[in-house]
């Protein structure tokens, strides 16, 4: 059960990050804040694992980070989706769709 929870957590964290970066490029704090806001606190995304997840995704070349300097601000590291990241997001989404479809049919859990 532990392993399943861990996989679920990891898979969902990746999905959320990829989805948020699909809209536009963002920095780490932005990502953490948005996950908290959009789930209205329901998903307590463990913010500590945000960066390890980002670095893992970067290793897998699904996202890429770069330092951006804006006038009057300290430089910040922005992340954006790579083409293979977009592919992965698509695959993630359909997997999760099927997963929730199944859950719904079996356990009557609905998803938005």
């Amino acid at each position: 059960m532990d392993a399943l929870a861990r996989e679920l957590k990891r898979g969902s964290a990746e999905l959320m990050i990829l989805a948020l970066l699909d809209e536009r490029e963002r920095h780490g704090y932005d990502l953490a804040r948005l996950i908290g806001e959009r789930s209205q606190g329901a998903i307590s995304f463990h913010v500590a694992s945000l960066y390890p997840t980002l670095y893992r995704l970067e290793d897998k070349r699904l996202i890429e980070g770069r330092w951006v300097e804006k006038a009057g601000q300290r430089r910040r590291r922005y992340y954006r989706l790579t083409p293979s990241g977009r592919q992965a997001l698509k695959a993630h989404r359909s997997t999760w769709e099927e997963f929730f479809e199944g859950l719904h049919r079996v356990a009557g859990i609905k998803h938005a």
Partner: protein
Amino acid sequence: MPDWTREISNRVEAARHPVDPDILEELAQHAAAIYAAARADGASPAEARAAVDVQIAAWQNEADALRRRPRRPPAPVPPPAESRSWGTGLLQDVRYAARLFRRHAAFSSLVVCTMAAGIAATTVLFSVTYGVLMKPLPWAEADRLVVLAETRGGHRPRFNSFSNAAYLAWQSRAETVEAIAAWAPRVFTLSGSGDPERIRVVAGTASLFPVLRVRPLIGSVFQPKDEAAQDGRVVVLSERLWRERFGADPSVLGRLVELDGQPHLVTGVLHDEAAFPDREARAWVPLRVDPATGNFLSMFEAIARLRDGVTPAQAAAEGAARGRAAPHSPDSDMVVRAIFGGIGPIEVAAEPLRDSLTADVRRPLIVLLVAVGLLFVTATANVASLQLARATTRRREIAIRAALGAGGARVTRQLLLENLVLGLAGGCVGLVITVLLHRWLPSLLPADFPRVSHLALDVPVVAFALAASVLASIAVGLLPAMRARRLDLVQSLSEDGSAPAGVGGRSRVARARLLIMTGQVAIACVLLIGAGLLGRSFLALVSADRGFDPANVLTARVHLPRFAYGDTYRAELVDSLTRRLRDLPGVTAVTYIDGPPLGASGGTAFMIESRQVQAASYTIGPGYFAAMGTRILEGRDFSDQDISDARRVFIVNQAFAHQHLNETAAGQRVRGWVRKGPDPWEIIAIVEDVRHRGLSEPPEPAVYLYRSAESRLAPTAPTFIIRTAGDAASFAPTLRSLVKQQDPTVIVDTVMTMQARLSTSLAQPRLYAVLLGGFAGLALFIAAIGLFGVLSYTVAQRSRELAVRTALGARPADIVRLVLFQGLGVTTAGVAVGLPAAFLVTAAIGRLLYGVGHRDALTFGVAPIVVLTVAALACVAPARRASRIDPLRALKSSP
């Protein structure tokens, strides 16, 4: 707003996880954003700080995941087990090897750099050894050319080692040789068409050109009839002189040039390639060999061309027989003794020309080549050791390929090919380095190094570099490949792909690596001892008692040939120059000598009672010993009275007194050849020995004559000795202008400080000591790196065992001791092999040593200490790492 960088760094790194500065900055900004957001929501600074604290604590828990892995290309797909043909399979293997090369860039670069450095060093030395010792000489069938040397009673003159007596007796009836040629080096003043210039000229018999089989570039070489000509002298120019002085104008033939004031008719020009004895020779003039008469024996160099199938020894035997058959006059014994340093029947030695040219450098070059070869072996061994370690982690990959049907031969070929790709890459980089080094070589080698102009990156040198890289690659790949053949599929696949655990230093790979390590330490030890001996020998040379003080002395040779300067004028000129130089501010003493220390000298013979003795003889100016700092041990210096009274007096050195005189030397009278005449001469003093012929040569008996004692004759090429209060070199321009003022036609050369003379004479031993020292240092460094690698590897392998020990209560000191023990154990084994090996091989450099035996106890004692110290340093890091192993983590991460 607070800067969180330091706090995050402290707290995260407290968990022993160093964090990339890049990541640190990203986290600090995140923290700053949390703080700012909290404050904007109305939180107090303390509350905002608390929010950040919670975040940092969370990061701290995940510290080990806070790292970006370096970008690596994905693992290449191994080539299929079965290929259509052998060729395609080979191509696939090469492609796979190239991809692996890219993927393991750091490892591959390390291997390539190690190989490149080793190959470059070895190739450069090989090219010097090949160019100097092995390359054929530029003359046709040069292996049949021999240098002839005459000895009497085992004594051989240092220069001009063949006499007219032996030459003439042999030349007309030679059977074993096609022809003999006599030649002697000369320095002439070339004048007419441009400034007068001192040039090196070879005076040779007409047979010189047929012996060498040399044909002129234009014109003709001289004929036997030219040897005798008193008027209508001829000269053959070198190509270089012809280009530099006459603009390569073919109409130079038939023109007259002046050599030492004598007109010479230009008959031909010789290729630089064929210049004899080397490219420094600028012209050739005929040499006449006169018959030996009672008191006349002329000396020169001689070479001969052997008839086909004749050995040098056969030629030497004929030469000796012919020479002995020549009429011998009893009067000539004195002359023979003066020239040879001994008397006896004529003996002749014949040595191949190439060996004779390179005799001085052959042994050091071979020693250095062997040394650099050893260095290359230890560098290669390091790579082999690394590959062996890597083969362990690649067991899974190889096992999978074997399971998929790749045969042992296929896998072996693949592994060898991988190394070949690396080795050839190393070879190519090495060749590039060699090319660069080659440009520097002529300036790196001492000025008196033979055949430097023959050094080139030719086919044999490039072939050597390639062969070295291929051989090294095969040697490096062989061990892992052999391991791959013996692979146990089931066992390998059941492991996790990392090294097998728990076997520690007792695994086969670890044992092989320790064995390699022992060899490396042994090599480092041998090289270090060799370098130590050469270094000590060099220091002994530098600090040897030379019999003079070289500091603040400027020397300059002034040419006053008889043909241009009459006796009286020459004496006046020398006196006047001495006076004017002495008057210069900053000059403390001025004198002169005809053969300065570390320069050439002549010899003479005497009768002491009824014994004939031989000695080097020098003519000196007033105050010579005081100016040079040579101590007078007994008796008195020359005085002006000696000149005015025309006293027959001279001074001898210690070696002379020791060999030829009784204890009470001064006042002893001798009769003989000192400025020919029957009257006896008196020895007035004994001075300390001066190393005239070179620092490593034992002092020989010498006599000093006062130049004006009998006649007003001054030497024709005195070397002025100018001792100064400060920097001597700064007086060089003043000296030149002073000579020019005195007489603008006078040529001054070899203007150099005594220190520079010393330094030049030390150039070869210094080069050898520095090179061997460098090789030894590198070998030691490589061995240290190797030891570090092997120990790190075994510590990683034994981490489980070490963790268990720690868990069972072993203290860090115990663990450190364990690792140190292993490291120093293998080093001691290496030293135990290296010491006796060095004991055997240092005999080869015995002849290169001065003032230190080749079994010098100090060197043999210190070298192992140095090796052990360096080894101990190399052990420190792995030992510390071992002592810090966290039992919990180590046991968890092991399978």
